[in-house]
């Protein structure tokens, strides 16, 4: 029984189609993690096999080798229109940020460059509400200024699946089709659909990546789950937060909020 997954899938497809119809120039961010892989899969369902917009990786050259290998294989197999955006170096980041947060901020700057250079009006991002408390406050269609600033205190009203799809010049919109999914939903869906997964998520020598990020700021957590079944069983009992292995989240009380308010995903 997975009627709940059907419901989530139908809702995400609805959002994807709204975005594609309403937003002129659209791209999807692909981090190669489990969530954005599921999002790619949903795009293929929504548009009957072919994804009608480019898929962008914000690359810091710090991903693990398995990630690059997976990216290249899937790009070819799924015939993706992949664009790789190289992120600027850490020295150019806001030096008042704590060091690990600074490393994460590189992606924000990479995204800004991407938006500026290609004039995208909308980017789809596979974030979820249950990952992190500030993400829990997100809208499905979330407007940002040109600098990427997120005005969390004045977000648009969003009800009955009516999303904000009109914007003044210079504003872009983040579209979050997976907002209502949980980590467990993503794994159950990946299992049901047979969505390919980067092998780093499966435990080796008592450790696995629960959340996949760059090698300098993400660490594997203790686990023996080496199959999707075992991961699902693990998640049903764990009390360790998903992003525990993400160094930048835990550097200071508001490090993640600061990252997000200036444009982090």
């Amino acid at each position, binding site marked *: *029984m*997975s*009627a*709940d*997954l*059907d*419901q989530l*899938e*139908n*809702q995400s*497809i*609805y959002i994807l*189609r*709204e975005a*594609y*119809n309403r937003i002129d120039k659209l791209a999807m961010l692909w981090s190669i993690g489990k969530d954005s892989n599921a999002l790619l899969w949903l795009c*293929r*369902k*929504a*548009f*009957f*096999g*072919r994804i*009608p917009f480019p898929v962008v990786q914000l690359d810091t050259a710090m991903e693990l080798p398995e990630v690059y290998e997976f990216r290249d294989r899937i790009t070819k197999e799924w015939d993706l229109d992949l664009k790789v955006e190289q992120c600027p170096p850490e020295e150019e980041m806001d030096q008042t940020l704590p060091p690990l947060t600074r490393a994460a901020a590189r992606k924000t700057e990479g995204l800004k460059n991407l938006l500026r250079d290609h004039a995208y009006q909308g980017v789809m991002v596979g974030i979820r*509400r*249950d990952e992190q*408390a*500030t993400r*829990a*406050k997100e*809208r499905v269609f979330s407007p940002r200024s040109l600098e990427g600033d997120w005005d*969390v*205190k004045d*977000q*648009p*009203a*969003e*009800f*009955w699946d*009516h999303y*904000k799809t*009109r*914007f*003044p010049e210079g504003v872009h919109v983040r579209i979050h089709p997976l907002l*209502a999914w*949980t980590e*467990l*939903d993503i794994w*159950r869906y990946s299992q049901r*659909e047979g969505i390919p997964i980067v092998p780093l998520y499966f435990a080796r020598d008592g450790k696995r990546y629960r959340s996949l990020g760059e090698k300098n700021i993400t660490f594997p957590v203790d686990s023996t789950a080496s199959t999707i079944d075992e991961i699902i069983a693990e998640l049903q009992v764990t*009390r*360790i*937060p998903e992003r525990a292995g993400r160094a930048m989240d835990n550097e200071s*009380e*508001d490090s993640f*909020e600061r990252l997000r308010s200036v444009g982090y995903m």
Partner: protein
Amino acid sequence: MPHSQLRIVIVGHVDHGKSTLIGRLLNDTGSLPDGKVEQVREMSRKRGMPFEWAFVMDALQAERDQGITIDTTQIHFKTKQRPYVIIDAPGHTEFLKNMVTGASQADAALLVIDADEGALEQSRRHAFLLHLLGVRQVAVVVNKMDKVEFSSRRYEAVAQEIKDYLAELGLQPKAVIPVSARNGDNIVSRSEQSEWYLGPTVIEQLDAFRPQQTSPDQPLRFPLQDVYKPDDRRILAGRIESGRLRVGDTLHFSPTGASARVVSIEAWNHPETVLSAQAGQSIGITLDKRIFAERGHIAHHQADAPVLAHRLSVRLFWLVSDPLVVGKTYTLKIATGEHRVTVEQVTAVIDVEDLSSTPGKAVRRNEVAEVVLRSRSPIALDLASELPRTGRGALIDGNDVVGGCLVVEIEDAAAANITEVSHTVSLEERAQSNGHKGGIVWLTGLSGAGKSTLAMALERALFDRGWQTFVLDGDNVRNGLNAGLGFSADDRAENIRRVAETAKLFADAGMVVIASLISPLKSDRARARVIGGERFHEVHVAANLATCEERDPKGLYRKARAGEIAEFTGISAPYEAPDQPELVIDTDALSRSEALARLLDYVDETLGKNSLKSGKELTYVI
């Protein structure tokens, strides 16, 4: 354990303890991640505050610093029975649009009321909005019982008051639960301090709520989102909002009236052929015929069609500081269809305190009201009480969603036409015979902007093409029809009203009326638009004041400057330029012939031969 989540929104007045209740629920059900309580203890310590459960929910620095919830948030937790999503909605009036955002997604609601303070304004407003938003399962939590020493009398008083209020909205709370969120009484376990209370604990009540069900037995409504051509297939994509469709069904499309049979339900990576689909599913279909169908059209079966309406009453909530005003035009979005609607009347502004209502001219931020809307083109819709998903919508002004509404009464367009047009010659027949539609081209602008010149040139050009047309000039009508009127504010408004009514008669007779009046006030033009309805076309003939004054064809500016004319528009009285006219003709930038060409193009497109056809085929390519 089932995976299907129940979505619960927690609402209530600011400071009545919503976030605290959630923090307590999470903690007492063992749903907080390791380390979270220590983290919150540390946050409280840093701010020199006692331990605050609310910090578990309030994620933003500003929320923790001010001790209030600003934006809605969601958090997951489980009971033994099932998983939940808890939606925290801010209680502060200022953040009502965030409350609406949160509550609209819920299956059920907990309304939190302070035992000491009782139901306050936002408690009532939230209850009212829950009702509007379609949340029908509500339980009341009487919080801070520790402050009133768990007095059963106090509890009874608060409970009775809110039950009476909810009853007037047609809501009956499933339970009214006395709790102390701070201390954990009656949240997960039964409190010894309230032995007089025999009802459920908060957790027991949550488990007793039922998920919202959609029945596939309702009439089919399949609003189109888009049309895709991934290959040689032409796929109509959308989500079924109610009912069910099957391969082989004949579908009818509103408002076009087109029909075709369903050949297939398309699916990607789905080995079995799909033969039917029902409410909630995002699907794509192919048809046996190439009909004109696009986003916003609603597919349905021949029996049980939606109503086609030009005029509808809605109950609405308003979210922005710019008030809704009579005469103003907004976009009404129902399912995926967008329609221009003009506010004809504010029938009632509802006072949420005592539910009394008064007619008005405007609806202000956070108010709820009943309003009559008129649309230029027919809208396919349903009554919210029958099919909520195609009977409710969002109102959009410019770039923003500014309010939401439920359709409570519909004037059926077909029925309305029979009573309105008792003529044996119909509007359509006149249009077919003339080769163009009737309409009102309303030219507004400063004196000297070029209205009269343009009006006369347009009349000539249309007449030469064989059109039925006539100019109503502001100065000319004052010699006859409006000879008795002076120049006071009331008389000017009446002058415009009469011109609009006259223009409407001409337009009904099939003519293109060109009304040329300064008509400086938005309110007067808005009234003219309501009179003219969908046949009214506002054209702003724009020019700089300096240009107009230089042209001064009638020598009026000179006199006004000399003080010989009082309240002359542009000099001593304001000109309110239209916000969203159908057309702007800038006579500063355009030559006389360019201006005429542009105006002719517009009239041709909206009233000419092509506008008489039902629609043209468009192609969509991915």
